[in-house]
């Protein structure tokens, strides 16, 4: 591929302020980006520029890929962004693909004797360490004033979690779809969702990051990119049937499932993202920076990272001018 030849230059050199190709590292999550990919918005938007889609499975690999200059845009969970920013990775937040809602939840087994959240004391709960659910669960513990050491926390990937669940080796897990669905089908009881937590200020999200050098070199392209995402959100809201159909194909699941998965996420258009609850504007940074900062601080208490930077570092890592611009241009029309 072109990656090795363009290792350190963040994108292929193009004419003027347009690169010859943009490289997007996506993950298979039923959000605006995947919808945009499914219905080909980018290809229309970026005429003359090759759109190179690269699928990723973990934040770790996206981090590496952006740092090595192999991709220009990437999707990472908010807890990983907090780590990345703390480690000074060369990227900035430009968009929230989705705020995690009902698609991540804490389910517990029927006979486990857990009825309220405080019953998790003394139980075995599985989460994939380092993921957004890990952060969500630990935050929920803190919120309820439960000491972390009173719960047996197990590090498991979702599919292994289901196996352990079936074997009765765990009492519950904080996990996402489709495993979450299987556990619910298996009689699991949803105790807490990330949507609940977000209402209490513990926001987790799938975040779009773009490499710093790309932002500097091609700001116009970034704007266009956000426009495309914004259009996808609007398309979803206005043309739900078609959106679901396209997404079902992309996800390789039934349309009803696709619709369900899409609804579980909180989709935000550009103007919503520019609001103070989220990215905010250049002059008036939104709450998301604080959320990242909280996450970072939290990770420090977990000894996962040695230290978290100050709030303004997180604020600087959020480039909200693009959503603002898109919002203005939209409302201006």
């Amino acid at each position, binding site marked *: *591929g072109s*990656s*090795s030849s363009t290792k350190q230059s963040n994108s292929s050199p193009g004419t003027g302020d347009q690169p010859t190709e943009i490289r997007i590292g996506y993950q*298979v999550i039923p959000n605006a980006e995947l919808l945009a990919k499914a219905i080909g918005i980018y290809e229309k938007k970026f005429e003359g520029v090759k759109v190179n*889609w*690269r*699928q990723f499975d973990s934040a770790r690999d996206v981090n590496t890929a952006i740092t090595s200059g192999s991709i220009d845009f990437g999707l990472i969970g908010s807890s990983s962004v907090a780590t990345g920013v703390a480690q000074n990775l060369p990227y900035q937040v430009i968009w929230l693909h989705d705020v995690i809602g009902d698609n991540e939840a804490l389910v517990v087994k029927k006979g486990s004797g857990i009825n309220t959240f405080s019953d998790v004391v003394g139980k075995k709960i599985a989460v994939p360490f380092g993921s957004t659910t890990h952060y969500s669960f630990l935050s929920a513990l803190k919120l309820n004033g439960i000491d972390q050491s009173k719960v047996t926390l197990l590090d498991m990937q979702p599919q292994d979690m*289901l196996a352990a669940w079936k074997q009765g080796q765990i009492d519950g897990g904080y996990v996402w779809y489709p*495993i979450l669905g299987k556990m619910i089908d298996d009689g699991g009881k949803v105790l807490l969702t990330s949507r609940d937590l977000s209402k209490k200020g513990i926001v987790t999200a799938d975040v779009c990051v773009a490499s710093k050098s790309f932002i500097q070199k091609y700001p116009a392209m970034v704007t266009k990119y956000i426009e495309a995402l914004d259009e996808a959100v609007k398309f979803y809201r206005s043309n739900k049937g078609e959106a679901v159909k396209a997404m079902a194909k992309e996800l390789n699941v039934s349309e009803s499932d696709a619709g369900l998965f899409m609804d579980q996420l909180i989709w935000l258009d550009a103007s919503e993202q520019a609001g103070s609850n989220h990215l905010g504007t250049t002059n008036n940074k939104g709450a998301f920076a604080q959320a990242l900062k909280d996450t970072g601080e939290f990770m420090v208490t977990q000894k996962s990272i040695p230290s978290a930077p100050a709030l303004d570092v997180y604020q600087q890592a959020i480039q909200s001018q693009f959503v603002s611009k898109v919002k203005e241009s939209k409302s201006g029309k």
Partner: protein
Amino acid sequence: MEKEVKKSLSSVRKRGIVSKEIYITFISAVFFLLLWFTITKLKIVPEVFFPSPERTWVTFVDLLQSGYKGNSLFYHLADSLLRMFIAFFLALLTAVPLGLLSGYSSKIRAAFDPLIEFYRPLPPLSYYTLLVLWFGIGNESKIALLYLAAFAPMYIAAMSGVKGVYEDRIHSAESLGANKWQVFRYIIFPSCLPEIFTGMRTAMGFTYTTLVAAEMVAAISGIGWMVLDASKFLRSDVMFVGVIVMGVTGILLDRLLRGIESKVIPWKGKG
């Protein structure tokens, strides 16, 4: 006994001993198929993890017809095999000479062996990031990872083969005027062929098991990626198809290597 079987293979064929073995293999295959049936019929293992043979077959046919996420099953397989072959051959061309040299010269061994011994036990995860940094997210980094997986078994096999070369064989070649290089090329190398082939077979299996790890980063094709992707979405039927395809091609590749081995070293065991 095996030895006899080998010795007069042509006569044996006529007498049908070989077909007896095929028969046993067949029975054992049928046994495992039945076991599979029974386990799924009795629902000993939840179907989400362990699809029934019928289900797997249907998925297989479906994957053959409509592919998986945009690429045909054959394409996925071919993509993986290509990566593997490139990695395997690069490893063969480097690991075997270096392993032989390390066995031959204690100086070369002193220089390279610690490095190789060091990287050998490392999990791919620990250096894949570095490979991506250096080689990007394209095929190069995947091939590099597979290369590293294939390297070690062949290196060790070649090195240990050298130690087993009958000393007087080397002496006789030297007395016939072979210089160090010629001894290496014409005596050490062929003497080690049996062990090298064992190393190649181990390496082939090893490369295959590393395939999923290699296709974890930024791939949208490859049989390893397919298995990985299916596992994320609990599509255990797709996983099973992928796994069976990997297993069967693995057996075929191994048979191929064994076939080449018996052509190349007919003298094995005849000292």
